């Protein structure tokens, strides 16, 4: 296939530094074309990818498992990289889940007989015909979209910058990332599909990765009794003494909250935090 350099670059975009790389694959071309472009890219940059992990961003579509396996095979055979995960945008993933659930429900309603012999990862239509739910086996949902995590565009999607204080009773909810140039007061609730950065004091309720991304983080310049949630994990801060508004010993320390071992972990954000985490505090 005659593919010149500029086209290849357009089909596969590379983002990241060091051993942490994101491949963003154009979501407007067939998988075969994308794989071809990926192959050429890897062949040209052989010594660039000797080892490390890669996140493949498949954009605004949900790829079938055989296609994902193809991409994985290309990457892992032609470079030292390991494919860590596939990502697509949360709303697309949710739509797809909903679509499949609806189809299954329609099937159940029609009392159509279902067999259990489907191989995981067949094409979408086949799988819908043959998979069933509730028998202990993985559902069509899990087979089809289980290998994909939401948040593909997390670093690229336009976020929201809020200038000012978020007051009690105020609710902010965005799909992308959220930056607040002010305080989040007690009684306020801020929520984002991606990360939350508070350039002020966080004293209210913050929910990062609200669409299910447990790798999201919350960073705040200082905190007092924050109520933190990341994806499905929650943390309540009720260990510190009651707040009289006086500066406590660690009120003015910047903190980062991430999910670790199944719970939200709060740690001081030191100046070389990013350095200690391979240049990117958001990746784990």
């Amino acid at each position, binding site marked *: 296939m005659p593919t010149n350099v500029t086209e290849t670059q357009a089909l596969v975009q590379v983002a990241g530094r060091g051993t942490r790389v994101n491949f963003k694959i154009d979501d407007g071309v067939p998988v075969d074309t994308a794989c071809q472009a990926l192959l050429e890219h890897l062949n040209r940059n052989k010594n660039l990818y000797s080892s490390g992990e890669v996140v493949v961003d498949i954009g605004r579509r949900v790829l079938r498992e055989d296609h994902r396996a193809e991409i994985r095979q290309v990457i892992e055979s032609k470079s030292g990289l390991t494919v860590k995960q596939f990502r697509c945008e949360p709303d697309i993933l949710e739509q797809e889940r909903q679509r499949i659930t609806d189809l299954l429900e329609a099937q159940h309603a029609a009392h159509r007989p279902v067999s259990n012999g489907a191989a995981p990862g067949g094409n979408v239509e086949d799988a819908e015909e043959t998979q069933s739910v509730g028998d202990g086996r993985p559902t069509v949902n899990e087979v089809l979209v289980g290998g994909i995590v939401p948040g593909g565009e997390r670093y690229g999607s336009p976020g929201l910058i809020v200038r000012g204080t978020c007051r*009690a009773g105020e609710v902010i909810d965005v799909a992308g990332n959220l930056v607040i140039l002010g*305080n989040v007061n007690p009684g306020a609730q801020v929520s984002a599909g991606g990360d939350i950065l508070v350039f002020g004091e966080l004293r209210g309720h913050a929910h990062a990765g609200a669409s299910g991304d447990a790798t999201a983080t919350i960073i705040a310049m200082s905190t007092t009794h924050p109520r933190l949630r990341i994806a499905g994990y929650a943390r309540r801060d009720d260990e510190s003494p009651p707040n*009289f508004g006086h500066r406590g010993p660690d009120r003015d320390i910047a903190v980062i909250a991430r999910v670790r071992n199944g719970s939200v972990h709060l740690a001081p954000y030191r100046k070389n935090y990013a350095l200690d985490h391979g240049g990117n505090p958001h990746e784990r």
Partner: protein
Amino acid sequence: MSGKTIVVTSGKGGVGKTTATANVGAALALRSNRVAVVDTDIGLRNLDVVMGLENRIVYDLVDVVEGHCRIEQALIKDKHAGELYLIAAAQTRDKDCITGKQLIGLCRRLEDDFDYVIVDCPAGIEQGFKNAISAAQEALVVTTPEVSAIRDADRVIGLLYASSVREAKLIINRIKPEMVRQGNMMDASDVLETLAVDAIGLVPSDDRVITATNNGTPVVYDPTSPSGREFVRIAARIDGDHIPIIAPVEEPPTSLMDKVRNLMGINRRTSAHV
């Protein structure tokens, strides 16, 4: 003449909205402004009692908006200050019997005749609150240095910014300098930092407010009262004077025995414990 409407609000009850309304109103009138104070706390009216005008009410706010009387008939002239008038709330009705639109209409007409229209807002953020803030261009948010009052003030400031009110200023009421010094009460800067608004007055806690309320004579008429003096300064700031805002200090001991004790280095509080 075209005056402006200022709403006095707080969210939480019992922080001193009505006291602030009566005192700021009286102090503005003492500076030879024409002032109308409107009590919108329908069903739980207090402002008439605080101003000592309870026995003079013939017509009230609901009578005006329902057209039972003219505005002039419902305006009750104050006993003390010159050009200070009250429109009392109805005691027998509830908040839903007037609408924001009706109050806007009333306040626009009052603005033609008065320099300041001060609206005393009910506690809460329901219909009564929405009515009261709808007519105002500016707001005075009253809070005390307690977390519960500050939380409610924060909510109210958010709602004010989402409304037609252009400017909100904070009155921190009932500050006890002694408790602040001991670290048992938030100081004004902590409150202002949380609420991120400008203060217009820091009012010390003052027992004279209680007697003044019971007598129906606002505390601004008592020159020895520290809270009354601060309300006078608040009125001056509203009127455009530039008076620096200073946190209240502890009152010096006044009685002869206190002075003697002070000389001997015995604190009043410690001696009370002995």
